[in-house]
């Protein structure tokens, strides 16, 4: 939490204030002389090295301190594939471009690049396109994250150590999400979703929401995803040799319009989130609410007398009881075993942990919501039971056939090939 006295417009002007042109310290992939790969794993990954190159580049870019490391790393990555080499030039070039583009358009531009990448990624059966899409998408993501992180740092302030974890988790989550929506195999999609959940949990952790992080992983990965898996097993035909997955899994519908709609939202959201105005508002809110958050935590502690007592005892084992507790300051008047009263100031580290606080918050502030959540789950249970009853003996087409009506599906229209369907029937 960095209190900011003044906030100037971020972006290129930052470099200007520093008195030097803002030239990102970019790894010069093409220019470097081939060396012995120090990181054989990376090198061995070959064409899959793109993301790592990015990661390295990101890290190097974010932190001047790490720049040598990064360039080292990037130098270390030999790119055997000339195509990939060229493709790798692309993000570099893009970033160079980004440096001269007004920051107001940077986010939007990056979003657009992401969109193009996603569209390419969604082209079925076109390996090279998808590769390009990957590169473009990553480049867009890189531009986005760089710009976004830069905006979190006030002008003239030192960015400090680059936030590796948020970037890593974010990248994982996004990659997972993209795979969820592009993978033709539903099972893999579900598994990638698990990746998203895990990465999301990581983000939760970074945001000090430990309880939610683990709850998320448990509920999603443990319960919901398993349900999906079961359903997939029930409903999904296995890929047929020579045909592959069902056509509806291979062919996205109206990819471009969908992407446009999605990325309009994305552009709006990113502009809304990261515009200077919003950034200032958020920073201000954080500064202003810091104290309130502490007070709220102490209050929650106060609402748990036993825990308060225990906490006080941690501070001073001699505490017998507590006469008063001031959430504003975290100061409590305790009666010691000696009968004397003592004023103890609890350090912030003694706040109750996240799960406790959430629990208190849940039952104290949102009891009705809690009840409703319970009812929802109950209803879902009923619903699931009703749905699961054995109620449909025949497929609709069969029943229509019996009734002498026209079949709704034409041979071969639905799932798989007609041969498969014929075999199934």
């Amino acid at each position, binding site marked *: 939490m*960095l209190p900011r006295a003044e906030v100037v417009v971020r972006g290129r002007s930052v470099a200007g204030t520093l008195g030097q042109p803002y030239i990102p310290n970019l790894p010069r992939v093409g220019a470097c002389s081939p060396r012995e790969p120090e990181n054989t794993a990376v090198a061995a990954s070959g064409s899959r090295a793109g993301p790592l190159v990015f990661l390295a580049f990101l890290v190097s870019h974010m932190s001047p301190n790490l720049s040598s490391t990064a360039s080292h790393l990037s130098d270390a990555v030999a790119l055997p594939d000339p195509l990939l080499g060229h493709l790798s030039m692309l993000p570099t070039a893009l970033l160079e471009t980004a440096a001269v583009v007004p920051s107001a358009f940077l986010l939007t531009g990056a979003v657009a690049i992401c969109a193009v990448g*996603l569209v390419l990624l*969604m082209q079925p059966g076109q390996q090279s396109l998808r590769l390009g899409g990957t590169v473009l998408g990553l480049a867009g993501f890189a531009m*986005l*994250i760089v710009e976004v*992180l830069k905006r*979190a*740092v006030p002008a003239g302030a030192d960015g400090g150590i*680059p*936030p590796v974890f948020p970037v890593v*988790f*974010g990248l994982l*989550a*996004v990659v997972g*999400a*993209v795979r*969820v*929506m592009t993978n033709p195999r*539903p099972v893999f999609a*579900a598994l990638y979703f698990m990746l998203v959940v895990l990465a*999301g949990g990581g*983000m939760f*952790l*970074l*945001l000090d929401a430990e*309880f*939610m992080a683990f*709850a998320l992983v448990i*509920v999603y990965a443990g*319960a*919901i995803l398993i*349900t*999906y898996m079961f*359903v997939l097993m029930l*409903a*999904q035909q296995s890929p047929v040799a020579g045909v592959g997955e069902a056509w*509806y*899994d291979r062919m996205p*519908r*109206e990819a471009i319009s969908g992407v446009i*709609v*999605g*990325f309009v*939202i994305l552009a709006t959201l990113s502009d809304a*989130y*990261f515009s200077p105005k919003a*950034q200032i508002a958020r920073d201000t*809110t*954080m500064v202003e*609410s810091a104290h309130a958050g502490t007070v709220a935590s102490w209050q929650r502690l106060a609402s748990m007398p036993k825990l308060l007592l225990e906490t006080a005892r941690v501070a001073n084992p001699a505490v017998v009881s507590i006469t008063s507790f001031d959430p504003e300051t975290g100061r409590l008047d305790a009666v010691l075993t000696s009968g004397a009263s003592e004023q103890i100031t609890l350090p912030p580290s003694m706040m109750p942990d996240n799960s406790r606080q959430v629990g208190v918050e*849940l039952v104290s502030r*949102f009891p009705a*919501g809690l009840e409703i*959540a319970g009812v929802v789950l109950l209803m*879902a*249970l009923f619903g699931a039971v009703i749905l699961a009853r054995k109620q449909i003996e025949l*497929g*609709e087409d069969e029943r229509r056939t019996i009734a002498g009506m026209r079949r709704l599906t034409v041979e071969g229209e*639905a*799932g798989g090939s007609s041969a498969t369907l014929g075999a199934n029937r």
Partner: protein
Amino acid sequence: MMPWTTSLAATDAQTINAALLVSALLFTCGLVGFLTRRNMIIMFLCTELMFQAAALALIAFGKVHQDLSGQVFVIFILTVAAAEAALALGLVVLLYRRRETLDSEAWSELRETS
């Protein structure tokens, strides 16, 4: 604060920005996936993605405001997601049994005939 979260010295502001960006991207991916995929199961997965995004944004903003309501609401999201998964997947199974396909377009006859 957990010590390890700050070990790499990411500022809160940076983390929050990253989280918000990821949330937006997740949401977009979920939305785009929902709009473009034909498989009903994956469509639901994509809604889950959007839930994720919402949850992440809630938590990030909770962090901004130093308020736990954000986290509490994530619980509700989880609830709804679970309920939805239960019901929706049940429905998907039913639908699949009727048409033997997971293609959502197989159920497009409610449209206005053009």
